[in-house]
């Protein structure tokens, strides 16, 4: 297969970027999107150019590093799939593909398609943890948790922190990510003591990082590779409201 690729190139954080067009040849249908970029980068390197920078690590949909907007859609629009798990067979031979970085003020571009997502780390530091003395691992099932709660927490915990939700949102809101963390920890007994301060701190931290508010468009959940449901945002809103009414502060 071959493709015409329109790729965002930007040499550094403060530099202005532009689109560059490339022709990618010898692409096999079973290659992943990132493998296709590897092939392109080899072709660019051989011809003496600067390879295209992009993030990746596990390449099996579990680490949350890959972060490409493909034809305007974060992760490329295949339901429940990270871009590293997207295969070239889902594109038409000869198609033009536009590749851009996540775009949000809180995720500044570092180089080409690589953005700085440390804002998410700081949100986690503000409340995405539980304070316990770990000691030895407790026995499995020593702490009874109902099936519904366990499932809700587990579904929310599937979030890999990729940031596609922010990239898809017209307000660059991080509510799906933050809601996933709050739902994960606040539905489990281990997270209960810090339930309200967690919700309040995470919201304050999100605002400080410059993410927008939620207008309930649902774009985030539509692109989320882990299919985190909008419910988690509702849960965050509720825990925040109750926290404020109880006088909890960040």
């Amino acid at each position: 297969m071959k493709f015409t690729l329109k790729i965002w190139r930007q040499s550094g954080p403060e530099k202005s970027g532009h689109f560059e067009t490339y022709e990618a040849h010898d692409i096999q249908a079973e290659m992943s999107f990132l493998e296709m970029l590897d092939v392109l980068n080899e072709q660019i390197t051989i011809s003496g150019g600067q390879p295209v920078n992009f993030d990746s690590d596990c390449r099996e949909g579990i680490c949350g590093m890959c972060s490409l907007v493909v034809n305007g859609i974060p992760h490329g629009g295949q339901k429940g799939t990270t871009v590293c798990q997207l295969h070239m067979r889902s594109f038409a031979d000869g198609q033009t593909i536009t590749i851009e970085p996540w775009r949000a003020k809180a995720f500044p571009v570092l180089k080409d398609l690589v953005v700085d997502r440390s804002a998410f780390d700081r949100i986690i530091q503000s409340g995405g943890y539980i304070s316990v003395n770990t000691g030895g691992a407790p026995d499995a099932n020593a702490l009874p948790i109902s099936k519904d709660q366990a499932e809700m927490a587990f579904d929310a915990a599937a979030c890999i922190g990729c940031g596609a939700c922010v990239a898809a949102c017209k307000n660059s809101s991080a509510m799906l990510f933050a809601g996933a963390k709050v739902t994960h920890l606040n539905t489990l007994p281990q997270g209960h003591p810090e339930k309200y301060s967690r919700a309040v701190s995470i919201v304050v931290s999100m605002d400080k990082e410059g993410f927008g508010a939620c207008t309930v468009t649902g774009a985030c959940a539509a692109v989320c590779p882990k299919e985190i449901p909008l419910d988690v945002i509702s849960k965050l809103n509720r825990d925040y409201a109750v926290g404020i009414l109880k006088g909890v502060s960040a």
Partner: protein
Amino acid sequence: MKALAAFFRTSVGKKLVMAVTGLLLYGFVVVHLIGNMQIFIGRETLNGYAHFLKSEPFILWGARLGLLTIVCLHIVTAISLSASNRRARGATSYDNPSHNGSTLASRIMLASGLVILFFIVFHLLHLTVGVIFPDHSALKDDKGHHDVYGMVVKGFQIWWVVGLYVVSMVLLGFHLSHGLQALFQSLGLKNSKYSSLIDKLALVGWVAIFAGNCAIPVSILLGLVK
């Protein structure tokens, strides 16, 4: 007080303000519509109702100031949220952005809200203050009361007035179709269990409000009510 102030400081707090004020305004829209439906009963009933509303100036002005406060809170918070949402987006936008499955109504809340604001001002000048057609507002009925029925009928015999009302109701419909389900989400009351029920409620709500509100000017323009 300190806790309440927090609602105005964070994005989630502001959304709660939007939801509470939006819910109150939604309630007003429903009550206002039910009251106005009395035009289909006749002149006496509508004029009697209008007279009753104005019989206690203390309650009347209390309600008016309350509504004004709610509308102002809703608008100021909406503008503050919209501005910070725009800032959050950053300077560069996508080459060919996708809407990622979002509805049109959810994307144009500020625009539909601003049309409603313009409409509210026109509507008040038209039927409350009475400066748009002073001769319509000066009408009296047999009891010597303000002839609200006559004023409404005369106003809606003018095609462009009806057009303006109907267009505004289309935008109100957009605003409320998304607004009702969004407010449950903002209040933290929405989840997959109830979400299809809430979506249906939002649909029935905006269709009923749109149809009811348009029925008045349109049936007058068509000569069904005179």
